[in-house]
């Protein structure tokens, strides 16, 4: 049986556009509100990433850090992320990918974590600080549960390493566009990023590859040819702004994701 993630990519390919992948942090600004936001994104996003916030996020830039700290301050607990996913899936059938740092999974227990992922309806996992080959055992456990473990590739990944990672990967991988943390300024040309993208696709064209980090409403249209684009910091920042301006973040993000979708359709 094809995974929800694979089906999402296939649907997008039929519409000749990249999959739009959104990212927000669970429980930002609260458990209830972030479920509302996720639902509002779910109308337009094809795949939804949900971050479980960590207090020491070494791979994240300021915008996602702000969202993470806000969620933790507002009482985020690991079980909340499953609550949000479960409730989202009751009404919207789009695939959800959980994203976070390994210590949270480690403390929850890998097996326990995967069991709860399965129960809630999680389709994939991205673990920022569990690179290949250290992630081999965990990735296998994911596969057994039919959960996609998304491998990350970056501009510093050597060709040889790329080949090994792709060979061991599941159906979806994630290309970090630039040297930097999430939300960094796109300091290289989209052309160069796409060259890197094409190099990876040439290794195995069947594996879906999304591009993330530093993608904004200004740069998104440059990546129309990719299998998918991830938009995260921009959304997290919009939540911060809507709180500041006493607006409804769900409404704001709904408008925003609609616009983003139009730019790649």
């Amino acid at each position, binding site marked *: 049986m094809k995974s929800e993630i694979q089906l999402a990519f296939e649907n997008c390919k039929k519409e000749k556009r990249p999959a739009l992948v959104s990212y927000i942090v669970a429980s930002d600004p609260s458990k209830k509100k972030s479920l509302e936001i996720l639902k509002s994104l779910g109308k337009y996003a094809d795949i939804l990433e949900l971050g479980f916030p960590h207090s020491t996020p070494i791979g994240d830039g300021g915008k996602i850090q702000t969202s993470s700290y806000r969620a933790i301050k507002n009482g985020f607990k690991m079980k909340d992320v499953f609550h949000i996913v479960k409730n989202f899936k009751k009404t919207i059938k789009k695939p959800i990918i959980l994203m976070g740092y390994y210590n949270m999974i480690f403390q929850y227990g890998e097996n326990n974590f995967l069991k709860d992922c399965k129960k809630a309806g999680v389709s994939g996992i991205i673990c920022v600080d569990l690179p290949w080959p250290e992630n081999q055992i965990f990735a296998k456990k994911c596969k057994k549960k039919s959960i996609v473990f998304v491998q990350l590739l970056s501009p*510093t990944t050597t060709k040889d390493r790329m080949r090994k990672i792709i060979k061991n990967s599941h159906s979806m991988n994630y290309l970090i566009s630039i040297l930097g943390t999430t939300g960094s300024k796109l300091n290289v040309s989209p052309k160069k990023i796409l060259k890197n993208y094409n190099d990876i696709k040439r290794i195995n064209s069947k594996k879906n590859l999304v591009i993330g980090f530093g993608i904004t409403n200004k740069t998104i249209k440059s990546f129309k040819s990719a299998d998918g684009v991830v938009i995260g910091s921009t959304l997290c920042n919009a939540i911060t702004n809507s709180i500041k301006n006493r607006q409804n973040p769900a409404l704001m993000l709904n408008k925003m994701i609609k616009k983003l979708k139009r730019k790649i359709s």
Partner: protein
Amino acid sequence: MMKIKKGIPLIDQYDKNFMWGGKFGGNFVPETLKKPIDDLNRLFEKLRKNKSFIKERDYYFKNYVGAPTPFIKLQNLTNYLGGAQIWAKVVSENPGTAHKVYNVLVHCLMAKYAGKKSVCTDTGAGMNGKNTAMVGKMLGLKVKIFMGLVDIKRQKKNVDVMKKYGAEVIPVTTGSQTLVDAVSECMRYFVANCDSTHLVVGSAVGPAVWIRICAWSASQISRELLVQIKDEFGKIPRKLKLLNCIGGGSSALGFWNEFIDYDKKQVELIGVEAGGSKKSKKHAAPLTNGSKIGILHGSAQYVIQDKDGQIGETESISAGLDYPGVSAIHCFLKDAKRARYTSATDEEALNAYKLVTKFENISPSLEPCHAFAECIKIAPKLSKDTVLCINSCGSSLKDADIIKSKLGYYTE
């Protein structure tokens, strides 16, 4: 139980995942850092066998740091406590006034070998920052220092020195605004600039290769001490105890390295963590207080955290010990039962400062005062032929304001 192999340096006792005892250390890092880590590993393995690199390192250790640093008997304190003989290795007697100079020198020389023109680093008490600024200037490297805003305020004297040497000090305003956040922010900067910048991690923490380089560099302390002890006593005393404060744990690894293979009944290794204020539940003593294994800054270690895995807030009067985790090698030494770990409170450290400066002509910073506190506790109960040696790894000048506000006076 975990076992330490004899005759092999501690820094080389890791497994295929770069972990000590199969549990501690490793490389839990974003993909982007994998290649810089591989490169640094290769460079380190090459240079540690390279005779001209070692010659250059030793040249700077001798002529710049001033090896060997003094090994002195604290006779008045010994008389006052009336038990074991108390000795100090005054590592702070170097231009950088702390042991950090060894790690920094090696990293800066490595950066030069790698053709990098700039280095970035983190700092808590400011000792690592100050040393990086100082050595960086000498070797013509551009220096960026990440420091928590709380630490910038409480260790202002060191910040002034960093700036004097021309380093850029970047205030870190996230989280608790202390060392843990400075390390995170510095790593983030490195992720974005790993092609042009060399990362100096300020202690024996972070991904495995930085732990190894740091412990390898600081080992100069125990190489000197071994010779000094043999000169003084003719041999290694039958009862020797080496006391060291533990934050990240770099000075202790340097202080203990040459003594690891001795039987622990002969050479006992005692690490003293920061217990925080007597009145507070917060502390910075993950080894003493039984914290669980977790991942922090790319390394598996005992770390202060909650049930979910969020890193906990720490508290200590000493900025240099104010870190929720601890070097993976110390976790290994604890589980292998080679070293014993305990803690001292803020109050005990201050009291130790009072006693040491009253009786002796040294003025240790609040970090080594934690080790002196343990010495004051145990020395009266020990026999006169026991030799207690404390690593006085930092000087107190940076703490002048804190000490003055707590005790009403300050003795340089």
